[in-house]
């Protein structure tokens, strides 16, 4: 291999939601790009081996076996361990991590990353989300405001295809949407009751989701077929993923080279120029090490792994790695806390049912500490939920066994409605990740140690997440309403954020307002690591917007000779 073949205009590390966007934007602007993925390739459609399987096609009807549980002590904590998505989540035995405090870490180590597995809910942060840290004296101020990101939200929404309504709520800014996936008759009824019950301060709206309700022929994507099997990979390309959306566009430019099985072990740092000159790659199959050089590097390895790469880079200059001069690298771990909410039954709709399986449910945007409301904690939460009629799983205590039981279970049961809050976690310096050099992964690389927990603000908020859920469902007409406030450890939301935050000052932040590492301005991080605060809305759409914005800035700066 000659040196020339190892040089690119840009290197993108990671092929998930933000990495795919970086590859698309940079190649479309004419850069020769190398996209590095640590795991195997998964081809669009052809690689979705379970996409057309039914429950009865799985030997254990999609349940985890005891053997699987033994092998996956983390995955078994959640729905993540089952037969249909087996092999799609990173293996703990090959890629362990240390839990100083419990952290449920669910990773996608393959082409497309978690873009193949994500929940697809797509919301914009609002104006207050970007100002709250400054106003409340929490952590540091975001270096950008909503208006800086708004045109980029427009841009990524149009391309990705987000279905939703323009609801006209300042707490949840409207975007560029395809028609919404509608509420069902019971959700509609609850929505109308809520409008009256809370004086227009609480709203139950259609979930905004990155599933397309209309076809996108220019991207060869067919509209949603209402199978609700998104996490198996969609053979119709009906939800946004790297494979369905960004990768094909990037490939078409002829400017993209993709290299799977490529673990980036460090950013190569030139201390004279104070710039990165490329990355070091460990081929996970051959154990060979390679150097690839480039003018710019985009780290999109997922929040904690982008930070892991920095921690392993330029350690001869900074013991804690590239970006550690701020004292904030690895700190301010965030996620969304969930598993608190309510559920109940709805009467009066026994003559109604539904056809098809939507890829989303309803959303109730944040109403706490909003408008005139003031609580004994900061920030707030939104709810995600759905109403449906019980199926064969329903409990028919009065019927024993035999023909009567079979007949009873063959008919739909009571309408139920349930929802869980998604709460904001404050950035806290003491919530952190660090390198544990005593523990090594399958490739001999040091692993991350997790040391993060829910703090007083979140624990107070969870009481409201349960009680408000009860109040909302009761006001919505539900009966037998029960609240829940269950166990929740960081990571459960699979929205890990922070550890290389954006800011205005290199002394207190790792990245500047265009996601450049202060200590190496040709290195950009535009995944969850960059988040200065978490908001309470699902974050992926914001990573897309941050990535497109940073890519445009990077290409401009390259042209001007600034990088």
């Amino acid at each position: 291999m000659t040196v020339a073949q190892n040089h690119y205009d840009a290197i993108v590390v990671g092929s998930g939601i933000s990495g795919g966007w970086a590859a698309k934007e940079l190649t479309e602007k004419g850069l020769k790009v190398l996209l590095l993925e640590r795991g195997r390739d998964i081809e669009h459609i052809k690689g979705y081996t379970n996409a057309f399987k039914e429950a009865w096609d799985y030997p254990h009807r999609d349940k985890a076996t005891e053997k699987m549980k033994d092998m996956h002590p983390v995955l078994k904590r959640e729905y993540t361990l089952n037969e249909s998505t087996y092999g799609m989540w990173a293996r703990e035995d090959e890629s362990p991590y240390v839990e100083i405090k419990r952290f449920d870490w669910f990773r996608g180590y393959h082409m497309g990353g978690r873009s193949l597995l994500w929940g697809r809910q797509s919301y914009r942060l609002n104006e207050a989300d970007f100002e709250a840290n400054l106003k409340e004296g929490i952590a540091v101020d975001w270096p950008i405001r909503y208006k800086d990101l708004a045109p980029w939200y427009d841009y990524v929404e149009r391309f990705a295809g987000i279905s939703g309504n323009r609801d006209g709520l300042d707490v949840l800014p409207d975007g560029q949407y395809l028609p919404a996936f509608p509420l069902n008759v019971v959700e509609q009824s609850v929505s109308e009751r809520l409008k009256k019950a809370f004086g227009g301060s609480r709203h139950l709206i259609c979930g905004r989701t990155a599933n397309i309700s209309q076809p996108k022929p220019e991207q060869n994507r067919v509209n949603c077929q209402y199978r609700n099997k998104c996490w198996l990979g969609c053979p119709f390309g009906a939800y946004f993923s790297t494979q369905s959306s960004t990768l094909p566009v990037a490939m078409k430019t002829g400017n993209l080279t993709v290299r799977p099985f490529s673990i980036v072990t460090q950013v190569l740092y030139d201390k004279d120029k104070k710039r990165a000159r490329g990355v070091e790659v460990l081929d996970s199959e051959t154990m060979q090490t390679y150097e690839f050089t480039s003018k710019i590097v985009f780290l999109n390895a997922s929040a904690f792994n982008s930070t892991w790469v920095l921690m392993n880079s330029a350690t001869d200059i900074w013991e804690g790695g590239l970006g550690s001069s701020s004292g904030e690298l690895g700190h301010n771990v965030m996620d969304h806390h969930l598993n608190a909410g309510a559920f109940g039954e709805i009467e009066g709709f026994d003559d109604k049912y539904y056809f098809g399986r939507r890829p989303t449910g309803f959303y109730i945007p944040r109403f706490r500490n909003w408008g005139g409301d003031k609580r004994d904690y900061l920030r707030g939460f939104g709810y995600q939920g759905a109403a449906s009629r019980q199926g064969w799983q329903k409990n028919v205590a009065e019927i024993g066994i035999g023909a009567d039981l079979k007949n009873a279970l063959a008919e739909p049961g009571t309408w139920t409605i349930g929802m869980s809050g998604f709460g904001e976690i404050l950035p806290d310096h003491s919530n952190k990740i660090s390198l544990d050099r005593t523990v090594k992964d399958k490739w001999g690389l040091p692993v991350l140690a997790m040391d993060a927990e829910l703090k007083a603000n979140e624990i107070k908020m969870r009481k409201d997440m349960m009680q408000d859920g009860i109040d909302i469902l009761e006001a919505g007409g539900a009966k037998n309403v029960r609240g829940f406030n269950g166990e929740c450890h960081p990571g459960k939301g699979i929205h890990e954020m922070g550890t290389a935050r954006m800011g205005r000052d290199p002394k207190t932040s790792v990245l500047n307002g265009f996601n450049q590492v202060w200590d190496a301005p040709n290195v950009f991080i535009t995944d969850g690591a960059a988040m200065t605060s978490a908001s309470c809305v699902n974050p992926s759409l914001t990573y897309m917007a941050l990535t497109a914005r940073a890519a445009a800035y990077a290409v401009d700066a390259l042209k001007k000779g600034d990088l």
Partner: protein
Amino acid sequence: MDRRDLLKMIAAATGMAMVGGDLWAADLKSADAGKALFTQSDIAFLDEIAETILPKTTTPGAKDAGCGAVMAVMVADCYDLPQQTIFFEGLKTIKALAKKQFGKDFMQLTAAQKHELLSKLDQEAKQASGQTPHYFILLKQLTLMVFFTSKVGATEVLRYVAVPGRYDGNMPYKKGDRAWAT
């Protein structure tokens, strides 16, 4: 929205025993028993129990769905050791009860006798309280799960459309219309 979480939550709230052992996930290692745990006659026995719980009527029953064989695989691979123990003790108890009450092997009982025997166990199980589930709860829930996730159960007893292609959230329903499998 994570509907899988929601379903789990609702199942827990309505007091359903979760097949697969989430509620009693013990730290004990599972016996790596494999399918060898069950003989052909065990599977035939499971088939009879399942058929008694969900019999053939105008629509197919548990035997038509081949429930016994799948139940054996589920118990061997997805139950932990304490659950397997409860399950096997339960099967022994049912065999003994058949002998005691009817003087016959369970497999020789008439459909009505099997129904009578298992109905009593169903009542007993519903009234049982304790840290561990009654064996008949396990048997019944496993039967239901295996049956309604089978092709026969999902498509001939319930309704299933693989590719709906559209959504209607306000579809008329009349009593007797079948439920969706999923």
